[in-house]
């Protein structure tokens, strides 16, 4: 009945219109089973729309979308039986308590009264929410809410879990908790489709990434391949003396073979390092190149106050892929 070679998600030429806006404009996506698949893009790129179409919440206007081989339009009910969704805005009832929310979903999934209560208690415990079990969700913090939301999504282990920007607006500690949960979920064999605006989140969790912009996939591949296509990162410097900036920029340009950007801040310099080698080796390559550049600056007696080596930001990925900065679209 279920062909295991079939991808978890397969779309071809998927189109969704909101009036004049083409939120999805021919989206082609193939998500293999059993991995975390990252969908990366700025606000308005069509990430949420794509997730809502795949979770049967929106009907596409054109193209094909299959989830485990089932058509999201014609076999919506079968799709719903295999997926779970944690939306961008907490998909839990704020007026009810955490416990009541989980029992509600459990009952709707067909658990009997006691089984639903036991399962709810078990999940609250595992997600560190037991002390808040009998409080209304509206009193929860963002991190607690998100954990409850994910707990609701895995009440019955889904085959495919959609996480729509699961860490947007969370503090670093809550974000790490969510990441741990996602890793545990995928280790159990659930496929996770994760949308995010943050390259480091995709980097931490996903093994394949699709970059989407204006409703289309503009790059797709393994993490390593994608990063290599973007460059390995950027060096950010702040100099002691603004007058030395031109000289420093020249040194960086020749030492790193890098694109140098002079910021509005008169003592700041950003240098984008080009690809230093193959998969995996690129990280060390970037650090080595950066330290060589620092040494060169030192030899020329240029005083560097602060220095940091960052991964390419989403803006930089966009710059590299589209030759223009990430734009804010209208449809989120």
């Amino acid at each position: 009945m279920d062909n295991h070679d079939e991808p978890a998600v397969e779309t071809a030429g998927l189109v969704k219109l909101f009036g004049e806006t083409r939120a999805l404009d021919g989206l082609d996506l193939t998500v293999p089973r059993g991995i975390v698949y990252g969908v990366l893009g700025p606000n308005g790129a069509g990430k949420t729309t794509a997730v809502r179409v795949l979770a049967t919440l929106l009907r596409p206007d054109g193209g094909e979308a299959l989830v485990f081989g089932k058509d999201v339009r014609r076999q919506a009910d079968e799709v719903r039986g295999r997926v779970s969704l944690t939306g961008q805005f907490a998909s839990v009832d704020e007026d009810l308590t955490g416990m009541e929310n989980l029992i509600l979903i459990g009952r709707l999934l067909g658990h009997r009264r006691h089984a639903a209560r036991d399962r709810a208690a078990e999940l609250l415990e595992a997600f560190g929410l037991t002390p808040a079990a009998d409080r209304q969700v509206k009193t929860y913090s963002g991190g607690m809410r998100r954990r409850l939301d994910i707990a609701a999504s895995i009440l019955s282990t889904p085959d495919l879990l959609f996480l729509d920007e699961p860490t947007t607006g969370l503090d670093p500690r809550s974000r790490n908790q969510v990441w741990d949960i996602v890793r545990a979920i995928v280790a159990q064999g659930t496929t996770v489709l994760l949308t995010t605006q943050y390259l480091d989140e995709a980097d931490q969790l996903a093994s394949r990434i699709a970059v989407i912009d204006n409703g289309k996939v503009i790059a797709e591949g393994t993490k390593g391949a994608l990063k290599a296509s973007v460059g390995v990162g950027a060096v950010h410097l702040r100099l002691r003396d603004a007058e030395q900036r031109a000289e420093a920029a020249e040194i960086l340009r020749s030492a790193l073979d890098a694109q140098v950007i002079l910021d509005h801040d008169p003592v700041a310099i950003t240098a984008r390092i080009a690809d230093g080698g193959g998969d995996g080796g690129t990280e060390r390559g970037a650090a080595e190149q950066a330290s060589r550049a620092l040494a060169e600056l030192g030899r020329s007696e240029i005083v560097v106050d602060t220095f940091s080596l960052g991964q390419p930001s989403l803006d930089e990925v966009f710059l590299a892929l589209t030759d223009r900065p990430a734009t804010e679209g209208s449809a989120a």
Partner: protein
Amino acid sequence: MTTARAKDDEIELAPVAENLASVLVAKERPPRPSALSASITFGWRAVLKIKHVPEQLFDVTAFPIMMTLMFTYLFGGALAGSTTEYLQYLLPGILVTSVVMITMYTGVAVNTDIEKGVFDRFRSLPVWRPAAMVGYILGDLLRYVLASTTIMVIGLILGYRPDGGIVGVLAAVGLLMVFSFAFSWVWTMFGLFMRSEKSVMGVSMLVLFPLTFLSNVFVNPKTMPGWLQSFVDVNPITHLVAACRSTMSGTWDGGEILWVLVASAVLTVVFGTLTMRLYNRK
């Protein structure tokens, strides 16, 4: 305030269990719940909301009391010579008016929910599609029973005496529940397509005022001009009030009762279908 914050921090710090994997292990998926069971679960959610925000029961208790008192003493002397006399005529009508008026809160509840993420979760669950909507109405039926009880109690205190006895009163309330269930689908439809809670309320006033006032609730339609009488005659509220009056006074008008039941079936089919179309497309 300080203690609440400290408590929050503790919960925030509560570690996600190391044996997270054990709760994730794929368990047997239970069979999907029946349509009735899913609807009742959604109804339970509506009841929980009342439990957490009991103030919302104000409109099903205070509003009916106000309506009954106001119209009894305002019109009683003028229309029937005495307030007790008028109450015998008015009470079944005010019962119907009050309950039908509060049916519109179903639409408001639907409208406030659709903006929230929880609606997405409900729509992505593999359950009988109309269950979420039926659940709202089931929860609201509880409110209607409360409103009906309030009005009957205040009516009895003021001197209303139903000749149809307890059976007649229960039959009237039963008919009213059937009709309100059916009529609520009008509001779930508006709740799904109107853009805001305020516009749902606006439309509901536009529908409810003519429907309840241009009927036989307050005065005998024979005193009205002919063109108005023809509207009053097709107004479902007129038939519902006539049916309730008949059971409460013990005369049991089969024709009117049948009219109400058929109208309820038609309302449910038409507006239930429209609601579900909107729900699936939202």
